């Protein structure tokens, strides 16, 4: 598989939403790795050193929700950018690590792609 573009980890427990977003983001020229929860995402981040952005849902079952994951990633891998999304809560500036982006659900594919391009400087 040729290296496409910046690498995005998408963390979403609802598999159809994850697959849909993954395809949309891939189609826009990014490389996408899917994770169904925070633990899977952390395993991926431990294994690969080329992740640019973690795109995570906030409401997730498991040991960490999206907000905790965002802070964990910021402490452990400071250069990685974070995009968080939720249909239920609106994350304010204090909830997410500095420089993170919040997208309310339902988001459009084009919005996600534009946000990822801005964060990674990809065209």
């Amino acid at each position: 598989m040729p290296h496409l573009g910046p690498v995005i980890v998408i963390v979403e427990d609802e598999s159809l939403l994850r697959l849909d977003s993954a395809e949309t983001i891939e189609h826009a020229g990014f490389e996408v790795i899917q994770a169904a929860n925070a633990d899977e995402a952390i395993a991926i981040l431990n294994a690969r050193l080329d992740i640019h952005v973690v795109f995570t849902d906030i409401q997730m079952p498991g040991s960490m929700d999206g907000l905790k994951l965002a802070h964990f990633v910021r402490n452990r891998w400071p250069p990685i950018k974070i995009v968080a999304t939720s249909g239920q809560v609106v994350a304010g500036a204090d909830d997410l690590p500095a420089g993170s982006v919040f997208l309310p659900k339902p988001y459009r594919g084009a919005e996600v792609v534009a946000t990822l391009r801005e964060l990674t400087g990809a065209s």
Partner: protein
Amino acid sequence: MSEFGHIDEYRELFENAPCGYLTTGPDGRITKVNATLTTWTGFGADKFIGRRLHQFLNMAGRIYYETHIAPLLRMQGFFNEFALDFETAAGERLPVIANASERRDAEGALLFTAVVVIKATDRRRYERQLVEARSELQKGLATERETAELREQFIAVLGHDLRNPLAAISAGARILQRSGALREHKDLRVLDMINTTVTRMSDLIDDVLDFARGRLGKGIVLNCDSTQPLEPVLEQVVDELRTASPDRIIETSFDIREPVNCDRARVGQLLSNLVGNALTHGAPDQPVRIGAKTEGDELKLWVANAGEPIPAAAMERLFEPFFRGDVRDSRQGLGLGLHIASQIAQAHGGRIDVTSTADETRFVFKMPLALAAS
């Protein structure tokens, strides 16, 4: 009739009157008591004579007699319709209503006090029942309010929870569409119908959430912005409805020349609800006509359809929540669409008016271009 007979008759009236009589002398001691009262209380006349009235009352009655009745009698010479409880020889309570008045001689010296006692077992019981019924009612109302609030909170939570699986269905449909795996006309039609249904259900959930929010006292919150044009939002709403009802004709004429200080998404929702209503209830072979224009200092937005006029009885209840007209097809919603449209209109300082004749049913939304600060 002899003189003697008269006296007998008066005595009879005194003794066996349908009320109790007693008199007390200037010293407050009982001087006369009639048979009715001795029967009611079970105390013979000999037990009454020479004693004081308050000795025949229960404790509450004694206190009330000493603190209220006796002083007022002395001050004004009478006391009407006071409630007392006698205590009978059997130790039972005898609730009564009593009147008392004093007789004085020419010099103003007290001769006696006459007391009339009317049994009030039933009346006092009704009064107590009324008080109890009222407090039961108040308790019931409070419970009802709590239940209603709980129900609306439940609706709000349910609405949120329904959105997630709906978003998943929608995502699934997009994945199939993108994959190109579906090529048959029928398969693509099914995919379209899934998308249309998702949109409809999502609109229903929005309505339910808006309703719950309204009832929970938060009302419809507006995010007004007059710098952006309204027309593209209206066009988009109409496009979505055309896609959802491909066999219906929707005609538009928009002429918005002034900036409108409104929440565009909310006005879009209002239009969507009005058009949804027109598509559901209008004649299916006739177009639904939509127009919007700025006129004077008002925005006017209307939706018109042909078909049966709205019955007069239904007219008054159109904007009530959960009101549903005649069901014509499965597009029927919860009956919240018009209610929420009217809430949105009110939030913008505007209103929706309806006219319905055999020719046309028309909903007109009017709002001021510059929303007054509220």
